[in-house]
């Protein structure tokens, strides 16, 4: 199940954050998504991810300090979604 969610997230991130020249299959689910490595996302993208979780999964992130942990990689985002959708 988490594999399906990871693939869905990769597609959403590429489409909604306008990440170019990469396919979902090429995104390493464990790689950092910010900075030079991985997808090279920036601070505006981080805000966009917060909106994406709210809009597409109904999950509101209240504490900003949780951000770096949740948004470390596509896999950590997927784990956070699964954990919080169960509740």
């Amino acid at each position, binding site marked *: 199940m988490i594999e399906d969610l990871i693939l869905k997230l990769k597609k959403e991130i590429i489409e909604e*954050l*306008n*990440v170019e020249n990469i396919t979902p299959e090429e995104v390493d689910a464990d790689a950092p998504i910010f900075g030079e490595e991985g997808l090279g996302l*920036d601070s505006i993208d981080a805000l*966009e991810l917060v*909106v994406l979780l709210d809009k597409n999964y109904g999950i509101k992130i209240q504490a900003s300090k949780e951000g770096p942990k949740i948004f470390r990689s596509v896999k950590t985002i997927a784990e956070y979604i699964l954990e919080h959708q169960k509740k």
Partner: protein
Amino acid sequence: MMSTKAELICGALRDFNILPSKMDLLITRYMKLQDHRVSLNGNVEYTSEAESVDALFRSVYGYYNIDYPKFFKMDNLCKLAFLSAEILLQDTDFLQKYPGEQIGIILENASSSLEYDRKHQESIRDRNQYFPSPSVFVYTIPNIMVAEIAIRHKVKGENTVFISEQFDPELIYHYVSELFRNQRVSCCLSGWIECYGDHYQSFLFIIEQEDKIKRFKGLQEYVILNTLNMEELYKGKSI
């Protein structure tokens, strides 16, 4: 060489103390992107058959071998400004000749950031579907196109964007002249960057001070900065 007409006009302006007597400002390089054509110093460099503005900007990006992934996150106004600056500055030493703090960016356009203002408005209209996008909101100010150029080229000097119904060379002339006179800038990127829907037009040029110019590769002639010359270049006439 400057045409006789331009020289006469420049001389007349100087007689009326509109231009400083010992400091001519010169347009040392200019580009245009309109009607699916890119021209540099009056010479067409690239023509595209793209069927949309998005596709056109992508094709220009590819043609000039630009490598800047953030380009794809920009709105079309910023893409146009960014591409115009890339084309204008590529293979030049402007950024090495002047410290970033001494390079200004003074632009004009008619539609401000209206396209993304409307997009943002759409995203907040329904209170039950209230998901404003940060990456849209960030482009709801026209000055962001200056910021994109400044970040890319490490330009830190005076900058602003004026909203005007049409290209207003007189405003640019007076504003930029004042910046040079007050030694706020030693070099300035200026011009018209307009984009809304399918309509786009850019006319961007570099202004330098005559006494600072020792050598410039690839351009044999300079154009004195005045309203008439800017208007003529904007309309595509040779000076």
